[in-house]
């Protein structure tokens, strides 16, 4: 395996071939905000938060799916990127009902973390206050579609790690929502193994354990990575 050398934010970096810019940055302590990226499942480049500037191309490219190349010069935190990231988070906050004070994920929410990371303190866009419904039909879990940011982590975790493919995306554009089974109530989907991986994967308070309070809410994302490593690399200890 060969090694590529490149510059991220003017810092010289050496990383193995095939790694993504995001991996290279994380390994070197350079923070790039992400929401749809989750260790262990495929990347989709959908949240657009990890966009970076690369010298020689006028397009912004997502760090999570762009492979490193020899001699790349990457900027992860220019003024333009900061502004666009802030707007992206603002758009997310105006799209759903993200009212932290009454959310089970308060204090344990990646959307909240990202908002703090990019310095978003209010949204300039009109709140849409959608009425998307809550599905509490599952015995153990619930999904509040109003808090969903459509990162599709649950879809990918369920499909790629659990192998059940309970979740998918229905409709298009602003009408998109996460659908369980063949658009059935979650509790009626036979394919669901109640493994809870989607709960661990969800970055917000959208998918939660029933009866869990804010104080109890904790996620075990390392479990997902552990499962992938166990399967692929036969590492059986955490």
């Amino acid at each position, binding site marked *: 395996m060969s090694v590529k050398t490149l510059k991220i934010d003017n810092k010289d970096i050496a990383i193995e071939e095939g790694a993504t810019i995001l991996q290279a940055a994380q390994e070197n302590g350079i923070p790039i905000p992400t929401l749809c990226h989750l260790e262990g499942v495929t990347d989709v480049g*959908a949240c657009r938060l990890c966009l970076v500037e690369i010298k020689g191309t006028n397009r912004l490219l997502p760090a999570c799916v762009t492979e490193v190349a020899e001699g790349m010069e990457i900027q992860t935190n220019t003024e333009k990127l900061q502004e666009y990231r802030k707007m992206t988070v603002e758009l997310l906050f*105006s799209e759903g009902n993200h009212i932290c004070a009454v959310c089970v994920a308060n204090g344990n929410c990646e959307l909240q973390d990202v908002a703090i990371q990019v310095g978003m303190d209010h949204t300039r866009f009109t709140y849409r206050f959608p009425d998307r419904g809550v599905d509490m039909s599952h015995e153990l879990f619930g999904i509040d579609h109003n808090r969903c940011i459509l990162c599709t982590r649950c879809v990918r975790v369920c499909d790629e790690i659990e192998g059940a493919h309970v979740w998918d995306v229905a409709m298009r554009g602003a009408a998109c929502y996460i659908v369980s089974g063949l658009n059935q109530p979650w509790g009626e989907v036979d394919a669901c193994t109640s493994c809870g991986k989607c709960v661990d994967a969800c970055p917000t308070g959208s998918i939660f354990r029933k009866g869990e309070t804010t104080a109890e809410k904790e996620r075990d994302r390392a479990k997902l990575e552990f499962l992938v490593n166990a399967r692929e690399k036969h590492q059986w200890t955490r």
Partner: protein
Amino acid sequence: MDLADLLEIAETQRTKQKPTRVHCCTSTGCRAARSLEVLHNLKSATEAAGLQDQVEVVGVGCSGFCGRGPLVEIDPKNVLYEEVKPEDAASIIDTLKGGTATATQGDLNHPFFSRQLKIVRQHSGKLDPESIEEYIAVGGYRSLYKALYEMSPAEVVEEITKSGLRGRGGGGYPTGLKWATVAKMPGDQKYVICNGDEGDPGAFMDRSVLESDPHLVLEGMAIAGYAVGANHGFIYVRAEYPLAIQRLQKAIQQAKKYGLLGSQIFDSHFDFKVDIRIGAGAFVCGEETALIQSIEGGRGNPRTRPPYPAQSGLWECPTLINNVESFANITAIIREGSEWYASIGTEKSKGTKIFALTGKIRNNGLIEVPMGITLREIVEEMGGGVPDGEVKAVQTGGPSGGCIPASLLDTPVDYDSLMAIGSMMGSGGMVVMDQTTNMVEVAQFYMEFCRGESCGKCIPCRAGTVQLYGMLTRLLKKQATQADLEKLKDLCYMVKETSLCGLGMSAPNPVLSTLRYFTEEYEALLQPPAYLNGKVTAGSVENSEL
């Protein structure tokens, strides 16, 4: 089937043809105006007049002048009748015996016709699209034979490269380069895809090509398959084009029967089969990676590029994906040579382009013009200008394009000139607007379209287009201030630069181009800031307006 067989079919067909042919358009547009009844009446009138031995009435594809359909043309008399009603049929047949027709006669010397240069549409409106023999009679499938027996795959790619053909789907990517990339990719399994998912408001060029000359597209695809080393092609057509689908199905069957598609084409070692895939009608499925996902049976979501389809496309195999019109240019390039093709058009945009000329204009319809012709020549000479008043703007490129003001009508129509003035070639929609058009409403219309057609995968496009639409609506309701206008611009640039695929990246173009050329219309709608007039700010307007 070998060359002798092909020539024999052509010869038989030519000798079978009667001296006079009456062409009646049977494409979708004219059908809507009862052209099938016209065709039926023309046939029975011919019988009634006892002319069936000398006169053949043929249902043909689109001849272009859609705004005045149904069209009936008499060949070789070169007479065209417009807006023909079923009851006019008998009198038209009567003219062959010296009578006079009750239908209006069109002027074939009008610039609408005389300024055109037809390569792709050369046989449109002259052939029965449901007859492979008619296509063979005018030289069809000869280019495929020539490619297979007189050229190596590399020579075919070279020929396309030298012709200077660029993607007619709108992006303008050099076709030869795309072909060369796929050809050079390793791997036994490769695919060719024809993108017939035309969805721009106001555009119907691809539909017309598929309906009028399906074999032209199939032959182009087969040549592409030979050139890049693919043995399987898919043609993706949206379900809203039932006639195009039906004619393609028929064409594929006929070509298979003659051994022009399928195994061992022209008794060579080259196999190429074509399957049709019907799209359920999502604008985003015209984006190549979304289209590929759709063919694979998945949700039509685009994915990030690279890797490009040429490297990893359908089922992760190298895939060549071109637009209908691009494929329709191939046979002519192989037949006449790249030098001939490259002599047409401008330095960087070769050949011709079909436009669907619509809107506030006298002559609506399809035109095929050499690149480099100015917008003014198209709109004023060929289109005959606006019926009452003057041209205000021309919208090109559909939702991805922009509005070009009348002051820039002398811009030549080519990829780079249009891009330089904030619009684009697009797939070829050209909507003319007059002085009564409100440009902010136009921007709102296109934004509404993009908002509805966004796949929802990435946030800038999914949520950004909704907010942009809301901002434009508030502007039109006179509820916005200068600060809102600045916010509108900022969000436009954000959506343009951060979206995942071409739909999102180009969605703000109609807003940006109207803002650039018609700023005063936006400014006229602005209200003084809230603190000056005591009114509420735009932010508190009801949610339902989004």
